[in-house]
């Protein structure tokens, strides 16, 4: 009788919990990409490295606070450092906009020119991050590690499979909910948010009705930098910080934004979870799970893993291709320029 329950606990522990956390991180990243796309109308290839840049600043502040003995008790110190990371990252991104993108915007350049310019910005950010903090793994999480440990769960329920939830996973989900709620409130209720949506819907009409484009663009960059820094820091707390990994996150993040419909914030969140759940369910080894649910003495030989974790990028890619083949505007209707 407890076998189906054990199987469910196993899946919850190794698939659902990690996928929810990872999905939240992707959703935050994809929101940044989709905002830039909706308002500035290009795919920002520098987004992964913006995440790395913001996270790097957060890490540097975290180390500084840790050396001063500052801490949040059970919560990671990085949460105090996060605002500093956001502010400096936003400042850097605004500087990039002023020096790079504004010129092309004034020239009404082709979207693909913006994409190439973002590749240039990516180079610069990537180099700076490697220059300042180095290309290696950095660990900056502290505080308590688990909300529920697998052993405690087993004692509580009497099951032989435990569910463990890391503090970083809990923080990720809570932060994601707060950030998304705040973002939607901002976009739907405030004057600036409404002008942003108007600008995204129809640039010329928005300009005619007196919306200040510079302000809209600046606010967009600040929001994107904030989202990127938060997403990057949460990812770094949950896994670890390595500049190259953040560059590679670009693919699942783009996939999330496109699956949901580029330019559509709600779609970006849905897309993030679709990608995260597919990636983890496809790369999970179902051997133990099968042994639980198949009755009798049958034992699975082999890992029963559909795809090795080395190919997790292939999952985002395949989903991306399927969406492009069947519904190029995404699940929720996005823009197509």
């Amino acid at each position: 009788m407890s076998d189906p329950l054990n199987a469910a606990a196993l899946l919850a522990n190794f698939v659902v919990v990690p996928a929810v956390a990872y999905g939240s991180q992707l959703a935050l990243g994809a929101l940044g990409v989709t905002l830039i796309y909706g308002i500035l109308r290009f795919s920002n290839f520098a987004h992964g490295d913006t995440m790395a840049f913001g996270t790097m600043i957060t890490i540097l502040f975290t180390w500084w606070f840790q050396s001063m003995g500052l801490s949040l008790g059970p919560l990671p110190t990085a949460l105090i450092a996060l605002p500093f990371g956001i502010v400096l990252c936003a400042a850097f991104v605004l500087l990039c906009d002023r020096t790079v993108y504004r010129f092309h915007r004034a020239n009404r350049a082709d979207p693909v020119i913006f994409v190439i310019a973002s590749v240039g910005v990516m180079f610069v950010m990537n180099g700076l991050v490697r220059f300042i903090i180095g290309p290696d793994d950095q660990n900056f999480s502290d505080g308590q590690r688990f909300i529920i440990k697998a052993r405690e769960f087993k004692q509580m329920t009497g099951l032989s499979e435990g569910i463990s939830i890391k503090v970083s996973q809990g923080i990720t989900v809570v932060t994601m909910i707060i950030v998304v709620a705040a973002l939607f409130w901002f976009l739907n209720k405030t004057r600036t948010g409404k002008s942003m949506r108007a600008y995204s819907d129809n640039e010329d009409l928005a300009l005619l009705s007196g919306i200040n484009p510079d302000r809209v663009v600046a606010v967009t960059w600040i929001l994107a930098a904030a989202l990127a820094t938060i997403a990057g820091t949460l990812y770094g707390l949950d896994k670890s910080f390595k500049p190259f990994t953040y560059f590679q996150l670009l693919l699942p993040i783009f996939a999330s934004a496109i699956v949901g419909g580029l330019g559509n914030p709600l779609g970006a969140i849905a897309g993030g979870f679709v990608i995260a759940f597919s990636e983890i369910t496809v790369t999970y080894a179902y051997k133990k799970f099968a042994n639980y649910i198949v009755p009798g003495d049958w034992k699975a030989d082999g890992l029963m893993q559909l795809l090795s974790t080395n190919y997790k990028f292939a999952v985002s890619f395949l989903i991306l291709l399927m969406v492009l083949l069947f519904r190029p505007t995404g699940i929720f209707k996005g823009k197509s320029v």
Partner: protein
Amino acid sequence: MSRAGLLISMRNVLYFAVMAGLIVLVGQMQSWNLALSILNLCLISAVMSLGVNMQWGYAGLFNVGVMGFAALGGLAAMLVSMPPVREAWAAAGSGAWVGIIIMILSILAAVALYRKLPKSGFRTVLIMLVVITGYVLLRIFFDPTTAVIEKVNPAATGYLGGLGLPILIAWPIGGLLAGGVAWVVGKITLGLRSDYLAIATLGISEIIVAVLKHEDWLTRGVKNVTGLPRPVPYEVNLQNTPWFLELCEKLGADPVTFSSIFVKLCYATLFTVVLLFVLWLSERALRSPWGRMMRAIRDNEVSANAMGKDVTARHLQVFVLGSIVVGIAGAMLTTLDGQLTPSSYQPLRFTFLIWVMVIVGGSGNNWGAVLGGFVIWFFWIEAEPLGLWLMDLITSGMSEDSGLRAHLLESAAHMRLVTMGLILLLALRFRPRGLLPERTHQ
């Protein structure tokens, strides 16, 4: 030729002369061995950027997967040239063939369904079912086989080996492999908005490199395949060859140093032949009615479409052609290295650097792409000693044991990424048409 035309061609000659002068300078100041290594990689980079220039310069397609296509070329070089590992084939037995047959059958079935059935949701579901079943069957039959193959003498082989053919054959084959993958990617993403091609190519290149890194039975993965057969003589053999020793005596050169220079010169000759051939074809294509049509499509898709040009089909065509050229260059690179090292495929080095070459050189101008390949590769290599020298200068005031000084010196290498990014951004802003702008024939 008009006066302005004459000035332009004089300027072009001047650029190339300066570039040649820089390489000679390295030969004089550092060493001729280094100068020739730089020259060889410049030649390969030039071929690669010619390929990207076809896609971007002729057609405005943004391919962010250059690395993947180059890696496919490298894979082809290895698969063609290495001798087959007979023990592995024997150990694999029928498993390998069953795997190959399942793969071919499922692909054929999927293609047949695509051709025979009318377009509908039912067809796509059916095709997906066929592909997934094929994949699962492949895994069931092939997984044990890969394990067996990887166990055959893992320190030396542990893979199936190649065909044992001359490596020069691999160059066109690498191109065809890259072109085939490009066709599939292009078929799906072209015709949609421009960013999708970029994102899809980014994805496919990551996947190709992941396959190279992790499928040990095919490529030995991160253990690398070393000692690929060469198309040129080996230094050791040269040093024992009478005519070579006579040549050395006549030139008054040291046989050991000169043999390595001689080998590099052989490579340089081969690469130059390929570069000139591709360049000649590209120039012919660009000046032909086909080239004019491509530029017309690039400059105004809507009106080209209204004139009855099939924009998507032409895009697909030029995307595949460009990828073939990149694949050839990738095979050349692996030939020069003499080994396939999957972990060396880094997107910044293989994709984005090539883009800097094309943009800085002059998109749409083949000579510009070649010049860009030379200039950017030269600075990519020379940026390191320059950067170190600069850092030395900056930190010279600091004390010997300063932590900051150590960090700055250690991280100097990363500054070249920043430099490349800045070069790209500056070129886009101040010289968007590149060093050698595209020439418009009135």
